[in-house]
Protein backbone atom coordinates (compact mmCIF):
# COMPACT_ATOMS: atom_id res chain seq x y z
CA UNK A 1 0.00 0.00 0.00
CA UNK A 2 1.53 3.30 -1.02
CA UNK A 3 0.84 6.79 0.29
CA UNK A 4 0.72 5.96 4.00
CA UNK A 5 -0.57 8.72 6.25
CA UNK A 6 1.46 7.91 9.39
CA UNK A 7 2.61 11.51 9.67
CA UNK A 8 -0.98 12.69 10.00
CA UNK A 9 -2.17 10.10 12.50
CA UNK A 10 -0.96 11.76 15.74
CA UNK A 11 -2.64 15.00 14.76
CA UNK A 12 -5.75 13.11 13.65
CA UNK A 13 -6.02 11.62 17.14
CA UNK A 14 -5.50 15.11 18.58
CA UNK A 15 -8.35 16.49 16.47
CA UNK A 16 -5.96 18.94 14.84
CA UNK A 17 -6.33 18.17 11.14
CA UNK A 18 -8.03 20.43 8.65
CA UNK A 19 -10.91 19.13 6.53
CA UNK A 20 -8.70 18.15 3.56
CA UNK A 21 -6.30 16.20 5.76
CA UNK A 22 -9.16 14.49 7.58
CA UNK A 23 -10.62 13.35 4.26
CA UNK A 24 -7.21 12.09 3.15
CA UNK A 25 -6.79 10.09 6.37
CA UNK A 26 -10.31 8.68 6.27
CA UNK A 27 -9.90 7.54 2.67
CA UNK A 28 -6.57 5.86 3.42
CA UNK A 29 -7.59 4.11 6.64
CA UNK A 30 -10.38 2.29 4.86
CA UNK A 31 -7.85 0.59 2.64
CA UNK A 32 -4.76 0.20 4.85
CA UNK A 33 -4.83 -2.12 7.82
CA UNK A 34 -1.42 -1.05 9.16
CA UNK A 35 -2.36 2.62 9.27
CA UNK A 36 -5.76 1.76 10.76
CA UNK A 37 -3.99 -0.10 13.60
CA UNK A 38 -1.66 2.83 14.18
CA UNK A 39 -4.56 5.26 14.13
CA UNK A 40 -6.29 3.19 16.82
CA UNK A 41 -3.12 3.24 18.91
CA UNK A 42 -2.89 7.02 18.63
CA UNK A 43 -6.53 7.34 19.64
CA UNK A 44 -5.66 5.32 22.76
CA UNK A 45 -2.75 7.63 23.49
CA UNK A 46 -4.95 10.69 23.01
CA UNK A 47 -7.61 9.29 25.32
CA UNK A 48 -4.95 8.42 27.90
CA UNK A 49 -3.47 11.93 27.75
CA UNK A 50 -6.87 13.34 28.59
CA UNK A 51 -7.20 11.08 31.61
CA UNK A 52 -3.80 11.25 33.22
CA UNK A 53 -3.92 11.06 37.00
CA UNK A 54 -3.94 14.57 38.36
CA UNK A 55 -4.51 16.04 41.76
CA UNK A 56 -6.74 19.02 42.39
CA UNK A 57 -5.71 22.20 44.18
CA UNK A 58 -6.04 21.70 47.91
CA UNK A 59 -8.70 23.58 49.85
CA UNK A 60 -5.96 25.37 51.76
CA UNK A 61 -4.37 26.58 48.51
CA UNK A 62 -7.71 27.79 47.17
CA UNK A 63 -8.48 29.55 50.47
CA UNK A 64 -5.03 31.20 50.52
CA UNK A 65 -5.48 32.33 46.94
CA UNK A 66 -8.94 33.80 47.52
CA UNK A 67 -7.68 35.61 50.61
CA UNK A 68 -4.68 37.05 48.74
CA UNK A 69 -6.92 38.30 45.92
CA UNK A 70 -9.38 39.82 48.39
CA UNK A 71 -6.56 41.69 50.11
CA UNK A 72 -5.28 42.90 46.74
CA UNK A 73 -8.75 44.10 45.67
CA UNK A 74 -9.33 45.87 48.99
CA UNK A 75 -5.98 47.65 48.75
CA UNK A 76 -6.64 48.65 45.16
CA UNK A 77 -10.06 50.04 46.11
CA UNK A 78 -8.50 52.00 48.95
CA UNK A 79 -5.81 53.41 46.67
CA UNK A 80 -8.47 54.46 44.15
CA UNK A 81 -10.49 56.12 46.88
CA UNK A 82 -7.39 57.89 48.18
CA UNK A 83 -6.56 59.21 44.72
CA UNK A 84 -10.12 60.48 44.24
CA UNK A 85 -10.12 62.09 47.71
CA UNK A 86 -6.77 63.75 47.05
CA UNK A 87 -7.99 65.10 43.69
CA UNK A 88 -11.13 66.48 45.26
CA UNK A 89 -9.19 68.13 48.11
CA UNK A 90 -6.76 69.79 45.73
CA UNK A 91 -9.58 71.10 43.51
CA UNK A 92 -11.51 72.28 46.57
CA UNK A 93 -8.48 74.03 48.09
CA UNK A 94 -7.66 75.87 44.88
CA UNK A 95 -11.27 76.96 44.40
CA UNK A 96 -11.40 78.20 47.99
CA UNK A 97 -8.09 80.05 47.63
CA UNK A 98 -9.11 81.85 44.44
CA UNK A 99 -12.59 82.73 45.73
CA UNK A 100 -11.34 83.95 49.08
CA UNK A 101 -8.74 86.10 47.33
CA UNK A 102 -11.51 87.85 45.38
CA UNK A 103 -13.71 88.22 48.49
CA UNK A 104 -10.91 89.64 50.65
CA UNK A 105 -9.90 92.06 47.93
CA UNK A 106 -13.47 93.26 47.60
CA UNK A 107 -13.76 93.78 51.36
CA UNK A 108 -10.40 95.54 51.44
CA UNK A 109 -11.56 98.14 48.94
CA UNK A 110 -12.27 97.16 45.39
CA UNK A 111 -11.64 94.42 42.89
CA UNK A 112 -7.87 94.39 42.38
CA UNK A 113 -8.13 91.74 39.74
CA UNK A 114 -9.52 94.31 37.28
CA UNK A 115 -6.83 95.17 34.77
CA UNK A 116 -7.13 98.95 35.17
CA UNK A 117 -6.19 98.90 38.88
CA UNK A 118 -2.87 97.97 40.46
CA UNK A 119 -2.73 95.02 42.86
CA UNK A 120 -2.95 96.42 46.41
CA UNK A 121 -0.87 95.38 49.43
CA UNK A 122 -3.67 93.20 50.88
CA UNK A 123 -3.87 91.07 47.77
CA UNK A 124 -0.10 90.82 47.55
CA UNK A 125 0.17 89.61 51.15
CA UNK A 126 -2.64 87.17 50.59
CA UNK A 127 -0.99 85.79 47.46
CA UNK A 128 2.26 85.34 49.38
CA UNK A 129 0.35 83.58 52.18
CA UNK A 130 -1.38 81.18 49.75
CA UNK A 131 1.80 80.36 47.85
CA UNK A 132 3.72 79.71 51.07
CA UNK A 133 0.94 77.46 52.30
CA UNK A 134 0.87 75.46 49.07
CA UNK A 135 4.66 75.19 49.01
CA UNK A 136 4.69 73.80 52.56
CA UNK A 137 1.85 71.41 51.76
CA UNK A 138 3.65 70.28 48.61
CA UNK A 139 6.87 69.54 50.49
CA UNK A 140 4.94 67.65 53.19
CA UNK A 141 3.04 65.64 50.55
CA UNK A 142 6.26 64.76 48.72
CA UNK A 143 7.82 63.44 51.92
CA UNK A 144 4.69 61.51 52.87
CA UNK A 145 4.29 60.20 49.31
CA UNK A 146 7.67 58.49 49.40
CA UNK A 147 6.35 56.03 51.96
CA UNK A 148 2.64 55.98 51.15
CA UNK A 149 2.53 53.96 47.88
CA UNK A 150 3.78 50.82 49.57
CA UNK A 151 1.25 51.22 52.34
CA UNK A 152 -1.61 51.98 49.98
CA UNK A 153 -2.67 55.20 51.66
CA UNK A 154 -2.17 58.94 51.25
CA UNK A 155 0.14 59.40 54.22
Amino acid sequence: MSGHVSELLPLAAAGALDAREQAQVAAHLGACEACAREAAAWRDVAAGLGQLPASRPSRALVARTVEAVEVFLAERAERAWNRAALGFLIAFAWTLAVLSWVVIDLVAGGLALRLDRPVGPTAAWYAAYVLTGWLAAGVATAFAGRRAPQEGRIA
Partner: protein
Amino acid sequence: MDPDRDDAARLRRGDTDGLAGLMQRHQDRLFRFLLRLTGDEPMAEDVFQQTWLQVAERIGRYDAARPFGPWLFTVARNLALDQLRRIRPQSLDEAGEPAAPTGIGDDPLARAMAGQRSSRLADAVARLAPLDREVLSLRFEAELELPQLAETLGVPVPTAKARLYRALARLRPRLLAHAPQEEWR
Protein backbone atom coordinates in the same frame (compact mmCIF):
# COMPACT_ATOMS: atom_id res chain seq x y z
CA MET B 1 -24.84 34.36 28.33
CA ASP B 2 -21.33 33.16 29.05
CA PRO B 3 -20.84 32.82 32.83
CA ASP B 4 -17.13 33.55 32.44
CA ARG B 5 -17.89 36.93 30.89
CA ASP B 6 -20.37 37.75 33.64
CA ASP B 7 -17.91 36.81 36.34
CA ALA B 8 -15.06 38.67 34.62
CA ALA B 9 -17.25 41.79 34.52
CA ARG B 10 -18.01 41.39 38.23
CA LEU B 11 -14.35 40.94 39.06
CA ARG B 12 -13.56 44.06 37.05
CA ARG B 13 -15.90 45.93 39.39
CA GLY B 14 -14.01 44.51 42.38
CA ASP B 15 -16.67 41.92 43.24
CA THR B 16 -14.99 38.84 44.69
CA ASP B 17 -18.00 36.69 43.79
CA GLY B 18 -16.79 37.05 40.21
CA LEU B 19 -13.46 35.56 41.23
CA ALA B 20 -15.22 32.68 43.02
CA GLY B 21 -17.15 31.80 39.87
CA LEU B 22 -14.09 31.90 37.64
CA MET B 23 -12.04 29.83 40.08
CA GLN B 24 -14.76 27.25 40.50
CA ARG B 25 -14.90 26.62 36.75
CA HIS B 26 -11.18 26.79 35.94
CA GLN B 27 -9.13 25.98 39.03
CA ASP B 28 -8.88 22.22 38.49
CA ARG B 29 -7.71 22.26 34.90
CA LEU B 30 -5.46 25.24 35.59
CA PHE B 31 -3.77 23.43 38.47
CA ARG B 32 -3.44 20.27 36.39
CA PHE B 33 -1.78 22.27 33.61
CA LEU B 34 0.63 23.94 36.03
CA LEU B 35 1.53 20.63 37.63
CA ARG B 36 2.20 19.12 34.23
CA LEU B 37 4.22 22.08 32.97
CA THR B 38 6.36 22.66 36.06
CA GLY B 39 6.53 19.06 37.26
CA ASP B 40 6.85 20.44 40.76
CA GLU B 41 3.91 20.75 43.15
CA PRO B 42 5.19 23.63 45.34
CA MET B 43 6.03 25.63 42.22
CA ALA B 44 2.65 24.83 40.69
CA GLU B 45 0.94 26.05 43.88
CA ASP B 46 2.97 29.24 43.87
CA VAL B 47 2.20 29.96 40.22
CA PHE B 48 -1.46 29.04 40.76
CA GLN B 49 -1.76 31.77 43.41
CA GLN B 50 0.21 34.29 41.35
CA THR B 51 -1.98 33.56 38.34
CA TRP B 52 -5.21 34.45 40.11
CA LEU B 53 -3.62 37.57 41.60
CA GLN B 54 -2.56 38.64 38.14
CA VAL B 55 -6.02 37.83 36.78
CA ALA B 56 -7.51 40.17 39.40
CA GLU B 57 -4.94 42.83 38.59
CA ARG B 58 -5.25 42.64 34.80
CA ILE B 59 -8.89 41.73 34.36
CA GLY B 60 -9.40 45.17 32.79
CA ARG B 61 -7.26 44.03 29.85
CA TYR B 62 -9.29 40.88 29.22
CA ASP B 63 -11.31 41.14 26.01
CA ALA B 64 -14.74 39.83 26.94
CA ALA B 65 -15.48 39.06 23.29
CA ARG B 66 -13.00 36.18 23.49
CA PRO B 67 -13.14 33.04 25.65
CA PHE B 68 -11.69 33.41 29.14
CA GLY B 69 -9.85 30.06 29.23
CA PRO B 70 -7.06 30.83 26.75
CA TRP B 71 -6.45 34.21 28.38
CA LEU B 72 -6.20 32.57 31.79
CA PHE B 73 -3.80 29.91 30.52
CA THR B 74 -1.68 32.56 28.81
CA VAL B 75 -1.28 34.40 32.12
CA ALA B 76 -0.45 31.15 33.88
CA ARG B 77 2.05 29.88 31.28
CA ASN B 78 3.95 33.17 31.23
CA LEU B 79 4.34 33.07 35.01
CA ALA B 80 5.27 29.38 34.99
CA LEU B 81 7.82 29.77 32.18
CA ASP B 82 9.41 32.72 34.00
CA GLN B 83 9.81 30.55 37.08
CA LEU B 84 11.14 27.60 35.09
CA ARG B 85 13.68 29.77 33.27
CA ARG B 86 15.00 30.98 36.60
CA ILE B 87 15.71 27.47 37.85
CA ARG B 88 16.56 25.63 34.61
CA PRO B 89 19.89 26.42 33.00
CA GLN B 90 18.99 24.46 29.86
CA SER B 91 16.39 25.28 27.24
CA LEU B 92 12.76 24.57 28.06
CA ASP B 93 12.58 22.85 24.71
CA GLU B 94 14.95 20.13 25.84
CA ALA B 95 14.16 17.25 28.11
CA GLY B 96 16.24 17.59 31.25
CA GLU B 97 15.74 15.76 34.49
CA PRO B 98 12.38 14.03 34.34
CA ALA B 99 9.70 16.02 36.09
CA ALA B 100 8.26 14.45 39.20
CA PRO B 101 5.17 12.39 38.38
CA THR B 102 2.39 14.81 39.08
CA GLY B 103 -1.03 14.23 40.37
CA ILE B 104 -0.49 10.75 41.68
CA GLY B 105 1.22 11.72 44.88
CA ASP B 106 2.98 9.38 47.27
CA ASP B 107 -0.13 7.51 48.27
CA PRO B 108 0.38 3.85 47.21
CA LEU B 109 -3.33 3.31 46.93
CA ALA B 110 -3.65 6.28 44.59
CA ARG B 111 -0.80 4.88 42.51
CA ALA B 112 -2.45 1.50 42.33
CA MET B 113 -5.75 3.07 41.39
CA ALA B 114 -4.16 5.17 38.70
CA GLY B 115 -3.39 2.02 36.79
CA GLN B 116 -0.12 0.85 35.34
CA ARG B 117 -0.81 1.95 31.84
CA SER B 118 -1.89 5.41 32.81
CA SER B 119 1.09 5.60 35.11
CA ARG B 120 3.46 4.68 32.27
CA LEU B 121 1.90 7.35 30.11
CA ALA B 122 2.27 9.93 32.90
CA ASP B 123 5.91 8.93 33.34
CA ALA B 124 6.54 9.22 29.60
CA VAL B 125 4.98 12.69 29.58
CA ALA B 126 7.06 13.68 32.61
CA ARG B 127 10.21 12.82 30.63
CA LEU B 128 9.34 15.27 27.86
CA ALA B 129 10.66 18.83 27.67
CA PRO B 130 8.54 21.41 29.50
CA LEU B 131 7.36 23.00 26.25
CA ASP B 132 6.19 19.59 24.99
CA ARG B 133 4.39 18.84 28.27
CA GLU B 134 2.79 22.25 28.01
CA VAL B 135 1.28 21.76 24.58
CA LEU B 136 0.02 18.25 25.39
CA SER B 137 -1.60 19.41 28.61
CA LEU B 138 -3.26 22.37 26.94
CA ARG B 139 -4.68 20.23 24.15
CA PHE B 140 -5.67 17.06 25.99
CA GLU B 141 -6.23 18.11 29.60
CA ALA B 142 -7.36 21.71 29.25
CA GLU B 143 -9.12 20.65 26.03
CA LEU B 144 -8.23 23.78 24.10
CA GLU B 145 -9.03 23.57 20.39
CA LEU B 146 -6.20 24.33 17.97
CA PRO B 147 -7.05 28.06 17.50
CA GLN B 148 -7.31 28.55 21.28
CA LEU B 149 -4.12 26.59 21.77
CA ALA B 150 -2.35 28.88 19.31
CA GLU B 151 -3.75 31.94 21.06
CA THR B 152 -2.56 30.69 24.43
CA LEU B 153 0.91 29.92 23.13
CA GLY B 154 1.03 33.25 21.32
CA VAL B 155 1.89 31.64 17.97
CA PRO B 156 0.12 31.19 14.61
CA VAL B 157 -2.12 28.12 14.22
CA PRO B 158 0.32 26.25 11.91
CA THR B 159 3.08 26.71 14.49
CA ALA B 160 0.84 25.42 17.27
CA LYS B 161 -0.01 22.44 15.09
CA ALA B 162 3.67 21.76 14.45
CA ARG B 163 4.43 21.97 18.18
CA LEU B 164 1.61 19.55 18.95
CA TYR B 165 2.89 17.13 16.32
CA ARG B 166 6.45 17.38 17.62
CA ALA B 167 5.36 16.71 21.21
CA LEU B 168 3.38 13.63 20.16
CA ALA B 169 6.25 12.42 17.98
CA ARG B 170 8.64 12.79 20.91
CA LEU B 171 6.24 10.94 23.18
CA ARG B 172 5.99 7.91 20.92
CA PRO B 173 9.50 6.43 21.43
CA ARG B 174 9.21 6.99 25.17
CA LEU B 175 6.01 4.99 25.21
CA LEU B 176 7.41 2.25 23.03
CA ALA B 177 10.51 1.97 25.19
CA HIS B 178 8.55 1.24 28.33
CA ALA B 179 5.38 -0.40 27.11
CA PRO B 180 4.80 -4.06 26.39
CA GLN B 181 4.84 -4.89 22.70
CA GLU B 182 1.08 -5.16 22.43
CA GLU B 183 0.39 -1.73 23.81
CA TRP B 184 0.27 1.55 21.88
CA ARG B 185 1.03 -0.23 18.66
